[in-house]
Structures are given as structure tokens and as C-alpha cells.
């Protein structure tokens, strides 16, 4: 079955990645692992130049129908973020917004983040939010209470108390969880499905920061039914991202 990757990054994060054409690398992996659709955000926009990074993603998704884009926003640059949302979120090949990890910007329930989400309401699109601690999950729940109509894709990262994060969002039905190579502790896939239900768990490779075999290995190893596995790697993403 062709896979739908709900979170990949265009750009280089790690010293393990070689210099070169990251798009070619991602495309090579997409072919090799049968990933039909990749939803990408710009690593450059997250850590460096917001506008330039988002522009590069726009160029990529314009040229290659395999890719769909996220607009990265930066709570420290509300105006520039608003401009990029306006510029890209009306295009059919962009599907959502990525909030930078709280350690790079601000807590998910901060005034700045709330302002950003308010600005984005008109676009009716999902947000990707990184959770580095269980406090981040609590902050995400606070944020969603102010915006019950908005879908949030929560991405737990290595070192976070993911079980607490899952419990905190368990009953918040507009939050789904993305299992990815960013957190490989055993049990997260099975526990996410047990706590949130099989419709609220999605798969993201976290390429190019992490190689897709990390997360595909997790999904292969996890004790899941075939139906759960299919929902995880493709079906749920269509619903949550409106594809």
C-alpha cells in the first residue's frame, strides 16, 4: 500500500546527512519505501530564515505533485508569518501550518502562539505542534480549548514523557498524534492507538532529519493489526489533513 507521510522536513538538520540535493534524497527514499505523498515543512524556516524557507517549499510543491507543503510560522515574527500564511495557504498544494518546537520559540499556550493561531483560523487547516515535554502537551490542550474547531497533529520528540502526553490529549478529539523517528521508545505506537483510538494516530518519517527506516521499523515491529497499520500509514492522514 502506498504510504502517506504526514511530516517530513526539507533541509539538513543533522551531521549524519550528507551535503547535496535534499529533494533528490527525499525522492529517492519515497521511491524506495513506496511513499506516495510527503507533507513537508522547511527546516530552514524553522531555525533560520522564515520567508526564504517557506518559499523553497513553495517552489518544491509547485514542481512536484508528490509533495504537499506546510507553512512554518514563527511566533517571534507575527507579521511575516501572517504574510506567508496568506501567500501560501490559499494554494491547493499547501495543507497546514507548523509551529516551531517550544524550545526554539515559545510555549504552545503563550500569547504569541495564540495570536498566530487566531490569524490562521480563516484558513481552516491543521497545525503540526511538537511536544518536547508533557508540559507542552498540557499547553497544547490549553491552546485547543480556545480553538475547538482546529485540528492539531501532535509530534512527540525524543526525551519527552510521551505516555503522559498521550494521556493528557486522550480525550481531546481535535488532537491526533504523529509517531515518527523522532521518538523510538518501544510501545509508543501501540499505546497511542490504545489511548487515542486507531483513527487518531498518524505516521511521519521526519526525513531528512531522521531516515524513514527508523519509523517504518517501529511500525513493522509494533504489535498492530493490518487494519491499524494501514490506517496509521495512510488512511488517517487523508482524514486529518483533508486530502
Amino acid at each position: 500500500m502506498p504510504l502517506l507521510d504526514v511530516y517530513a522536513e526539507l533541509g539538513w538538520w543533522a551531521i549524519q546527512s550528507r551535503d547535496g540535493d535534499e529533494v533528490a534524497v527525499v525522492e529517492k527514499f519515497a521511491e524506495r519505501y513506496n511513499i506516495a505523498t510527503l507533507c513537508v515543512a522547511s527546516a530552514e524556516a524553522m531555525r533560520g530564515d522564515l520567508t526564504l524557507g517557506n518559499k523553497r517549499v513553495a517552489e518544491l510543491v509547485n514542481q512536484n505533485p508528490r509533495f504537499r507543503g506546510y507553512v512554518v510560522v514563527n511566533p517571534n515574527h507575527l507579521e511575516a508569518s501572517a504574510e506567508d500564511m496568506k501567500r501560501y495557504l490559499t494554494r491547493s498544494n499547501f495543507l497546514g501550518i507548523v509551529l516551531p518546537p517550544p524550545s526554539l520559540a515559545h510555549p504552545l499556550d503563550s500569547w504569541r502562539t495564540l495570536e498566530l493561531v487566531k490569524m490562521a483560523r480563516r484558513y481552516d487547516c491543521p497545525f503540526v505542534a511538537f511536544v518536547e515535554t508533557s508540559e507542552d502537551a498540557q499547553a497544547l490542550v490549553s491552546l485547543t480549548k480556545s480553538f475547538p474547531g482546529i485540528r492539531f497533529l501532535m509530534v512527540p520528540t525524543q526525551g519527552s514523557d510521551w505516555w503522559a502526553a498521550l494521556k493528557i490529549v486522550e480525550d481531546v478529539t481535535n488532537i491526533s498524534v504523529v509517531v515518527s523517528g523522532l521518538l523510538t521508545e518501544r510501545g509508543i505506537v501501540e499505546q497511542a492507538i490504545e489511548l487515542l483510538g486507531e483513527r487518531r494516530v498518524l505516521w511521519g518519517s521526519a526525513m531528512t532529519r531522521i531516515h524513514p527506516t527508523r519509523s517504518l521499523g517501529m511500525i513493522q515491529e509494533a504489535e498492530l493489526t493490518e487494519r491499524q497499520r494501514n490506517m496509521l500509514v495512510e488512511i488517517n492522514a487523508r482524514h486529518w489533513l483533508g486530502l
Partner: protein
Amino acid sequence: MAGQVSLPIVDCNTWVGFYPRQAIDLSPQVLLSLMRRYGVARALFVHTTAVFYDARTGNDLAVQVARESGGLLLPVATLNPLQYRGMFEEVERRLQQGFRLFRFFPHWQGWLPKIAPFRDLAVFLNERSVPFLIDCPKVGWATEIAELAREVQIPIILCDVSEDNLGEVLCVVKSVPNLHLETSCITQPDGFEMVCAEVGVDKLVFGSGAPLHYFASALFPLLHSSLSEEDKRKILVENLRRIVQA
């Protein structure tokens, strides 16, 4: 995606016991079932009790688990150098029981690699030709451990390295002959190729962190790398064998 692999595997980084920080099943049964699934011949494990509670109690439990596994699980002893008193006696006792490796956990136990008791412990192990593994997730620690490694001859394997300090680790592993790197930090096939090119394939030892982490997450990036079968074999089994036999 690959399942069981044809290459022999010995995993130097596994766990058994109760994990106090998350509800993850680290029972010997789970570890043995993963080993069967992926064709792991032997797993070197530490008992969580030895790391998080009391080294002597945990090392005793490790002996028991190893015995019950029929030789598939090989115990690695650990100590907390902050407890200092009785430390050397505990080392002697474990060596008499047949332990061949020690592993240390400064980040879990709240000490730094540069503290004096750990230096004394490393010298003591060196006098008895016992190699050890040490977790090294923090920036600056690899440099401290490298200074210690230059004073001894025994092989030292750096484990649990993070993305943040991998560059520092490569720098010291490259320049200090008796430093080695456990591979669970290498998340990319390209990463294996790059690390081998930087420090040499003989310096790498396969470890998964299972059952705390999904085993496949550690194995698949290596299998999907373009390293030769011979190099993969070195990483998966031969380098560790050489270190332990030395």
C-alpha cells in the same frame, strides 16, 4: 522492509528489569522474543535495578536472568561511583563471577565522567584489563572521557550519544585509539557511511537500546547503508568480540 537478517548479530546495548521512568515492558521474555525475531545471537544487558536502585542487588539479578536465559543474555555489570565505598570489592566479585564488561550511567545517576571516584574505577578496571561502556549523551563528556581514555589502555565504548554531541564524539573516537562508539545514535544509513569514513569501521559496535527502544529502528539504518557485508559483520558482531576477547 527487512525482518530477520542473515548476518550474525550481537547487541551490546539491551535492558532487563523494571523501568521506573515509563511503563515499557523490559522483561527477559520481551528481549528474547525480539532476539528471535531479528536473529540476534546474544544480547549484552544491564539490569535496571543496578542502574536506578542498587548496583549490587541489580548485578545479582542480572546473574540470575543470564542463567535462566541459557546463555543468550550476557550480563553487563554496573556500579555507581558516587557510592564509592566497596566499589572495588564489587568489581572483584563480579569478575570472579565471570562478568567481562562493565557499563556506567552518569546521566541517570547524576555524576560527571570527570569525578575522581570514576577515574579511580577506570584505572582499577584497566589494571584488570576489563573494558567498559559509558553513556555519553551530554556535550563535553566525550572530551572528558577521552582524557581518561588516554591514561588507560582498555577499550571504552561510548553509548547513548545524542545528535547534539555526535560531532564531539567523532572527534575523540577518531583521535583516541581505545575509544569506540555504540551505534544506536546513528539514525541514517548515510550516517553509518559517514561515521565509518571518519573513524573507521573497527570503532563501531552495534547496540539497539531494546526493549526500551524499537529494535528495528537501530538495525534498519545499518542494513540499508551501502557498507559492505564485511563491514556490517564487523559492526554487528566482530568488533565487540574483539574488544571483549582482548
